Every structure is written in structure tokens, then in C-alpha cells.
């Protein structure tokens, strides 16, 4: 099984530790992982702003980089969802549509493809799990509170395999953090208020760490917590599942 590792642009630039953890975790689980060096971005920042017509370059690049792999794995639910729903190219669209089907968010890949049932990791902390909207409602990584349907959670099940993790209960299990791509600056007032409220829910319920399958949400909440010198930290789920080691940065 050959999997291509897609590390989205902002993860590459700002959160290399999450990317390293993703790579190491996959390797430990016996996956042959390739990392195409010419990768950049999924194109979502342009597309969600109404500029999907400017994403041809990103899309072509993505297809060229990843078409050869059996699976494409990424530690970002939002980027995975965008590619699954919107990846297309003018010249090679059949290949692009085929690539769509091979894209997996990390916890989805661990659960549905590798069928992981145990992990060698320890994280003795109170953890708040932020259900990122695109991962949850888009990729259906976990049941949604709006629906009348049986509960499940791929990220929570995986965290349950990590020794010492104590998942806290939130007052609002799956409310958006307010990041929303360019929404975070275009609608600054509402965006930051949403972020403040999400952070407060985790703090109020005793989280030491906030984790998620999406770094964009974590980056947003981290920005708010750092501003007010909160003691709560953010950590990508890959780092917990891989077993946290000393920080590279």
C-alpha cells in the first residue's frame, strides 16, 4: 500500500510538528509513505472566497503530484473535503475525479482503511476535542448533533486508544470555531467572537489541551488563547496519536 502524504500549505509553513507526527504514525503502522516535494495547496482559500476559477493551477499540480498513489492522506479535514468535492482539471478531469476518491483525512484513513484498533501512545491530560465542521459535517468523521442518528466519532475512538487521555464534555459539542478561511478577516467581529466562545467552552470544562483533526480551527483558537495568555494549548490529533515527543520548534 502506497500512500501519498499531502501536507497543506499552512501546516507545512506553521505546524511542521503535526506533519511529522502524521508521517511517523503512518510509517509505524506499516504504510509506505511518499511525500511529493512539489505540493503546495488544495486551492480552498481561493475557492471559498468565490475564486474557484483561479484554482486550476493548484488542481493540476495536485493531480500531477498524487495521481500515482493508492491513497492520499492529509492531516486536515477541511482540505480533504475541498479536494473530494471540488478537485477538477480542464485537461485531465477523469484522472482528477479518480484522485478525489483516493483522498482521506488522517483519522478517516486510520479508522476506515487501516482499521486501527490499538495505538502505542500515552497522553495523560484532559483533552477537549474540537469537531471541525468540514471534517465532521462534510467528511462525517463523527455524528452531528443536528441529526437523529446513532452516535459515533472516529477521532474520539482513536483518542480512546491513547493511554491517559481524558476527553472532556463540552456544552456545545459541535459548534464552529469561526475561522472559515477569509471569513476570519472579512467578518472579523463575528469570527473572533465565535473563536472566543469556543475557547471558553473548552476552558470552562477543564481542558488542558484542545485537539482536532484540522489545524485551521486550532490555529484560530490558539491565536485567541495566546492573546489572552490562556494556559490551554492546542495540539493536532496526529501528535497525540503518534505519542508526543519533544517539540522540534
Amino acid at each position: 500500500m502506497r500512500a501519498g502524504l499531502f501536507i497543506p500549505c499552512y501546516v507545512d509553513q506553521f505546524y511542521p510538528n503535526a506533519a511529522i507526527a502524521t508521517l511517523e504514525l503512518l510509517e509505524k503502522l506499516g504504510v509506505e509513505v511518499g511525500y511529493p516535494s512539489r505540493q503546495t495547496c488544495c486551492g480552498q482559500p481561493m475557492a471559498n472566497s468565490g475564486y474557484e476559477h483561479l484554482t486550476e493551477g493548484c488542481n493540476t499540480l495536485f493531480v500531477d503530484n498524487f495521481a500515482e498513489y493508492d491513497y492520499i492522506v492529509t492531516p486536515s479535514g477541511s482540505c480533504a473535503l475541498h479536494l473530494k468535492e471540488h478537485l477538477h482539471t480542464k485537461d485531465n478531469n477523469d484522472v482528477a475525479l479518480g484522485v478525489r476518491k483516493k483522498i482521506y483525512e488522517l483519522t478517516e484513513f486510520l479508522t476506515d482503511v487501516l482499521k486501527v484498533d490499538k495505538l502505542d501512545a500515552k497522553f495523560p491530560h484532559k483533552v477537549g476535542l474540537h469537531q471541525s465542521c468540514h471534517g465532521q459535517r462534510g467528511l462525517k468523521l463523527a455524528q452531528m448533533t443536528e441529526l437523529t442518528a446513532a452516535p459515533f466519532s472516529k477521532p474520539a475512538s482513536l483518542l480512546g486508544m491513547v493511554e491517559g487521555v481524558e476527553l472532556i464534555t463540552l456544552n456545545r459539542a459541535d459548534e464552529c470555531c469561526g475561522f472559515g478561511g477569509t471569513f476570519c478577516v472579512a467578518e472579523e467581529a463575528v469570527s473572533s467572537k465565535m473563536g472566543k466562545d469556543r475557547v471558553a467552552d473548552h476552558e470552562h470544562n477543564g481542558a488542558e489541551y484542545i485537539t482536532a483533526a484540522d489545524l485551521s480551527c486550532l490555529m484560530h483558537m490558539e491565536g485567541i488563547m495566546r492573546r489572552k495568555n490562556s494556559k490551554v494549548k492546542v495540539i493536532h490529533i496526529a501528535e497525540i496519536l503518534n505519542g508526543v515527543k519533544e517539540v522540534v520548534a
Partner: protein
Amino acid sequence: MKDHAELAEVFNKDEQRVDWHDETLWWVRQKRDKASHLIPDWEELRETASQIKLNVLSDLGNYLEMFEQNAINNGVKVYWAADATEHNHIVHTILKGRGITQMVKSKSMLTEECHLNHYLEEQGIEVIDSDLGERIVQLANEPPSHIVLPCIHKKKEEIGEIFHEHLGSAKGEDDPQILTETARSHLRDTFLTRKAALTGVNFAVAETGEFVVCTNEGNADMGAHLADVHIASMGIEKLIPQRKHLGIFLRLLTRSATGQPITTYSSHFKKPRPGQEMHLILVDNGRSIQLGREDFRNSLKCIRCGACMNTCPVYRRSGGHSYHTAVAGPIGSILAPNLDMKKYADLPFASTLCRSCSNVCPVKIDIHEQLYKWRQVIIKEGYGDKKKAAAMQAMAFTLSNPTVYRMAGKAGRVVMKYAPFAVNNSLNPWYKHRDMPKPPKQSFGEWYSENRK
């Protein structure tokens, strides 16, 4: 005119008020969850309702003609209004022809959309809204901020002030029971003296020509039963094929809206009582244009329950008035651009695309998908921000060229200069309430080339 972001910023100046507004509507969302989770086949109900509405939209012309013929046979006078102006003119003509200068009106978002009250006032006709929430915002000279809970943005103390000024309640009185009694006796007089009553229409049944009006206060019934002239205004999308389909929608409507099992009054109007006139106005006002837009057609499935507003984290923290249109929130943001793309170009962007709206929608409108698609249409039609367009071009260029991307990344992560959160200075909106991520020593790409190859 201020756009959604600017109006929301004003709303957010009073954080305690934002918290109160958010929590009030979240409470309604929770009531909706409790009510819907009690129905094991809830998701099947939603799917069935969606299919029925899709069927109606796929053959709307024929259903409308069937409904019209049956309504006429029942003794109802039927009118067709192409737009708001025609609708308002029809209402005025009916009233004028009978020498009526005062009218009572129950809740109708369609008449808000048509700005009927304002028009009739200009013609010298007094309109009194009989829904309690609508009456409050009418006295306050404001539009409703929510389609089901029109004055949800007002605290009881503020309502007390309004009633003191207009209805003579005691100064400082804010007891909900007493305020409701005050409105009740004021409206009782209105009901008894009005010769004409206008109601909205929640559902119209094609096979029988009857229409159904849902209220909790019974105010539509009070108005229509006591008046000599009953005028009902309905959007052409309000049809359902048969009476047997009604049960599905009545089960969904109020559970989605407020968490009640059903509206207190679900009244069927079929024919005028002896001596009464019943007029029904079928209003298009952009609906057939929307029907012609394949990507946005199914927004016409909407039954106006307001669930998408209650669940929307942006709506709860920006208030209905920030949407500057009759129907606010997520559904308003996909309906309004159809009416005026330039004026409402901001609304599809007033969302994080979190998809909660689509999940609560009782008729399964893919609201988030349509928000995304409206964004593409609005940019292509040239209603986007020109400065943003330049930044987007630059970002697309960088991200399409791995070499440029790597170089930009090395030079202090400036690849992210187009990303909104990258610069810690007061000109960057990100920085107002948030810090930027600490740039690491090396990118993952750099780490990988040192450690794996």
C-alpha cells in the same frame, strides 16, 4: 449602505448583548433538537418532505393552475402578482374598492419582502400587525429580525418601554404576562373593528384549493373570522400536491422552528363564509427566476421555519438586522442575491460554511452548497471586492508554482502574506483579537528533505 460585516461589528460592540442573543437562540436550537430526536424516523420525514417539494417545483406551473381552478371553484378570488409592486397594488385596489382604510395583518414574511406596510401607509391605509412579536417591532419602527421570532433581538425591558410609549402600560413594567395582556387588549379592539384582514399562507393544497395558516397566537384566525374581507398572500412555491402531504410538513414545521410538536393553530381556509370575500394573491417576485437557476432552484423548498437561523453561529452573533433583508440568516443569504445580486453580494460570504444549517433544514436544502455557489457567481459577475481579487490572483500564482512557493516560504514564511493571519500589525483584522502562529525554524518540506531523503 453598511454590509453584513460592518453591521455585525456594530452589533458586537455590546458583547453581553451578543451573548444573550446567542444563548436565547441556542436555547431554541436545543428545543428543536429535543423535539426532533424524539421522532425516530425524523430523517426519513425530512427526506419525504424534500421529495414532495422537489416534485412540486418540477411541475410548478401545472400545480399552480390546478390550485387556482380549485380555489376559484371554492369561491375564492385569485390574483397573480409578478412582483412586489403588483402585489401591493392588488391589496390596495381591493381595500380601496370597498372603502376600507384600516387592516389587520397576521404574520407574513412575503408582505415584509414586498414592503406592503410602508406602501399602504403611503396610500393612507393603517395596518396593524397582530402577531405579538411583529406588533412590537412595528411599534418600534423596525423590521423583524427573525422570520419566526420577529422581535427576538429585544429584551423584555425594551418591550416594556415600547408598550409604555405606545400602548400606555406603566413606566418600567417588564413583566411578560402583564405586557402580553396589554398587547392582547389592544389587539382585541383591533380585531373587532377591522373590516379587512390579511394573512400569509404556510401551505396551499393543489388538489383542494384550500390553504393552511399556522400560528401560535390564533391571530390569523381572529383577523380572518371577524373581517368582511380576507386577503391571503402567498409565494408561488408554497404549494403541496395533496392534503395527505400536509401531515408531513406540520410534523416538521414547528419542531424545527421552536421545538413544539405542532403549531397551536393550523387553520384550513377553503371558501369564504356567507357574506365574506376571500381573496388570494399568488406572488412570484423573483421566484420563477430562482426556479430557472439550476444551482439555486431548491432554495424554493423552504417552509420558513427559521431553524437555519437558530443554529447558525454567525446569525446568533450578528443579529437578524445585519442581513439587511426581510429573510435573514443562511436561507436569506441564498434567497436575497436572486432578488438583487449587487445589494446582497455580501450575504453569501456571511458564513463559515459550517453546514449546520443544511443539517437542521426540515426540507433538506443544501444551504451551504448554495452559499458556496453564490460566492462563485457573485465574483464572476463582478460584485466582489477589487483589492481582494488582486490578492487572490497573487495567492493563486504562488500556490500554483512550487518553486515560488518554496522560496517565498524560506523568506520568513512570506508565502503566507496573502493569508489573513500572517502579519501581526494593527492593520490586519486577524490581529485585533488574535495572535498569529509562531513561525517554526523550518517548514515540514525542509524537515523532510533533511530527514527522509
